[in-house]
């Protein structure tokens, strides 16, 4: 079920009403209803894959319970590995089987040995990368004794399948979300109103910014041989805004929806395109994934401690794995590696934690240095996005090669496109709104006239939204 679909527009109020008016008396009922609603939400797409979520839930619940009774370190390790192997096993099979097979076949044929590999026609279960990481975080935290294992299966099932964030995150930590299922939720008007506003803002980013940019970016990326350098550059910029609007919009809708049900999820995006260096960018972009990799991969590897060699290795591992998490394609691996290359100088100079505050914290506008830093970081990011967006590595390199031909003209096709007319003012508006609300969770929070502001955003959605070309959320494919 898409957040921007009629199905969800009916599903959400129905679930909301039942949740607050029918099952509100009892915590167990509340949690059970969330599990049922979440399974309906997921099954709407393909009910067969509900078995995967259920199996993953059963395994991690059982492992958690077993860990609570086990003090022997080696046995605890075995339990942890059971969880890791089951979860990553599913992920590996559904997401990476064909990729590894194709690459093995190619590698063997390169050395003169022809081997036969049978590719499978595998459907990637929506959201598998997200809920897998979420349940893994639970088992690892329990294993590390940082979290008490739950004895309540329904609460745990609700934590794993919680529908607002099931298919594309934010990847919640058990330590934040699970305890919220232990307490009966009381309706909080302030929180719910804030949630509603955040949903509206998320819809604006998705329907107005991302979906409109998508048409432009898709056209340019699909016909990159026909376009001049300036248009190709514009295509990469449009994709940067498409993916930002798409994913951060989704996150806002997910967080806002959770608030309607009395839950607080962690912020997933914090105006990342206003970052002054790539380290800051990664503290602000897809925060739930970045911190997941930091806590469960980077720090266990040694993080920024140890020799320079180890530090470099760790940075490359975390970024490449993060790239690979996005998809089984070399484009994502190169995208990750490129970000590691960007990050490395900061780490080596010990400057990766210079910009931990918000840019121009106490002033209206950035100074020239900050502006330069933001533009440069955005430029680097755009360059990396080309790999992320391209069908394959060869196309990415050709796209970049064509950019560096330095031909400046907007082709006729581009000029005729309706979006040349509307998109640039809309993007400027997004940048301005986000700039002036960069210290807040979302722009409609704590403003003087929130209702007026919200209605203005609704007006923009209605007038400029791309409804004839509704795009699926990009991160659904991951």
């Amino acid at each position, binding site marked *: 079920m898409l957040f921007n679909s009629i199905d969800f527009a009916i599903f959400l109020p129905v679930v909301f009403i039942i949740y*607050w008016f029918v099952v509100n008396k009892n915590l167990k009922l509340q949690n059970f209803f969330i599990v049922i609603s979440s399974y309906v939400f997921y099954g709407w797409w393909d009910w067969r894959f509900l078995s995967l979520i259920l199996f993953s839930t059963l395994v991690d619940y059982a492992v958690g319970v077993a860990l609570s009774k086990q003090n022997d370190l080696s046995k605890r390790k075995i339990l942890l590995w059971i969880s890791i192997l089951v979860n990553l096993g599913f992920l590996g099979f559904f997401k990476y089987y064909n990729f590894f097979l194709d690459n093995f076949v190619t590698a063997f044929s390169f050395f003169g040995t022809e081997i036969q590999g049978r590719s499978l026609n595998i459907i990637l279960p929506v959201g598998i990368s997200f809920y897998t990481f979420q349940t893994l975080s639970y088992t690892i935290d329990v294993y590390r004794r940082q979290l008490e294992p739950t004895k309540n299966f329904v609460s745990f099932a609700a934590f794993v399948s919680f529908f607002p964030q099931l298919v594309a995150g934010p990847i919640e930590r058990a330590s934040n979300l699970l305890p919220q299922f232990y307490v009966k939720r009381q*309706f909080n*008007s302030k929180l*719910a*109103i804030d949630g*509603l506003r955040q949903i509206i803002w998320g819809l604006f980013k998705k329907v107005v910014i991302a979906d409109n940019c998508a048409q432009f970016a898709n056209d340019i990326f699909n016909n990159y041989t026909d376009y001049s350098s300036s248009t190709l550059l514009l295509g990469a910029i449009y994709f940067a805004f498409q993916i930002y609007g798409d994913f951060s919009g989704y996150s806002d809708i997910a967080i806002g929806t959770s608030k309607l049900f009395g839950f607080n999820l962690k912020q997933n995006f914090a105006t990342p395109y206003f970052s002054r260096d790539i380290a800051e960018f990664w503290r602000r972009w897809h925060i739930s994934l970045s911190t997941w990799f930091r806590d469960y991969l980077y720090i266990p590897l040694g993080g920024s401690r140890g020799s320079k060699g180890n530090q470099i290795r760790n940075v490359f591992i975390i970024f490449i794995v993060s790239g690979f998490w996005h998809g089984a394609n070399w484009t994502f691996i190169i995208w990750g590696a490129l970000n590691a290359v960007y990050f490395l100088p900061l780490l080596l100079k010990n400057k990766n934690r210079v910009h931990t505050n918000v840019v121009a914290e106490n002033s209206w506008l950035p100074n020239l240095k900050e502006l330069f830093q933001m533009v440069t970081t955005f430029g680097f990011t755009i360059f990396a996005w080309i790999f992320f967006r391209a069908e394959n590595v060869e196309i990415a390199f050709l796209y970049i090669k064509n950019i560096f031909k330095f031909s400046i003209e907007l082709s006729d096709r581009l000029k005729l496109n*309706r979006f040349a*007319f*509307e998109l640039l003012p809309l993007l400027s508006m997004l940048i301005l709104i986000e700039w002036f609300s960069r210290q807040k969770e979302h722009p409609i929070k704590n403003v003087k006239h929130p*209702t007026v502001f*919200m*209605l203005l955003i*609704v*007006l923009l959605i*209605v*007038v*400029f*939204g*791309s*409804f*004839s*070309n509704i795009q699926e959320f990009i991160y659904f494919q991951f």
Partner: protein
Amino acid sequence: MKTFFKQFVFALTVFFILLVILDLVYTQIYSHPVYARNKVNWLMNKEPNQQFDYAIFGSSRVFFHLNPQQIKSETGLSGINLGYPGSNNFEIKLMVKEFLKHQKTKKIFIQVDEQYNKERLDPIAIIPWMPFIKDDYIYNEIKTVDSAAVYKKYIPFYRYMVYDSKLGFREIMMSFINANKFDSTNGFAVPSGIMQKRRELSTIKLENKKNNQLQIIIDICKKENIDLFFFTAPYYNTSINTEVLKEQLPNYRDFSGVFREMDYFGDPSHLSKKGAEAFTSLFSNTYFKN
């Protein structure tokens, strides 16, 4: 909970009012545009009760092919080209009915081709009619072929949202600043480009049965005492079983194979500028000079 619902209902009410206002504004602009940007709009805004010697209806294969101005210079007859891209039998019927509501003519020409067997609406060609769906007659017509017509009529602004790429903000703005290319030529748009690659023979197979939409036009013309003609415009290297059309339609003439030269075509289904001039002459000689 009360505060939340109060706010929610308030926001919903304002949202609904907003949709109603936007719907009124958009519909008003499309009903009385500074520049009519499509054929439906153009026809709706034509001065009523004009007498035309003929009117031609069809798809892009009329829009880009037959120039009423050229016919006037060759025969002295004044006519109007009401073809527009994508228009199918259903939209042609709507166009004929709308035309006869406000204008007069002695002869009507309908272009028929590979789309002959289609009875349903064309999802693109129907869009220019959407601003006028509140008109009972247009709504009753559209609802027979579109199950979503009821939402488009009754949910304010819904039709402008679902067709945002054709009826959205850009089109509204363009109707203030950018004139169409067919106003000065009585509905004819000059084609551009010449076909570069020779194409293998392609075959179009029509089913031998009546088309209900066209039958309605035949009945109307009979009732109004208007001479009705059907024809097929030229194709490049295409075999089409036009004997079906000869059998099913009155006063049918087949022009599908009259041109063989590549430079007469922009693509296999559309003539070039040179081809359009030649076809207009041929059309005018065939129907108006005997």
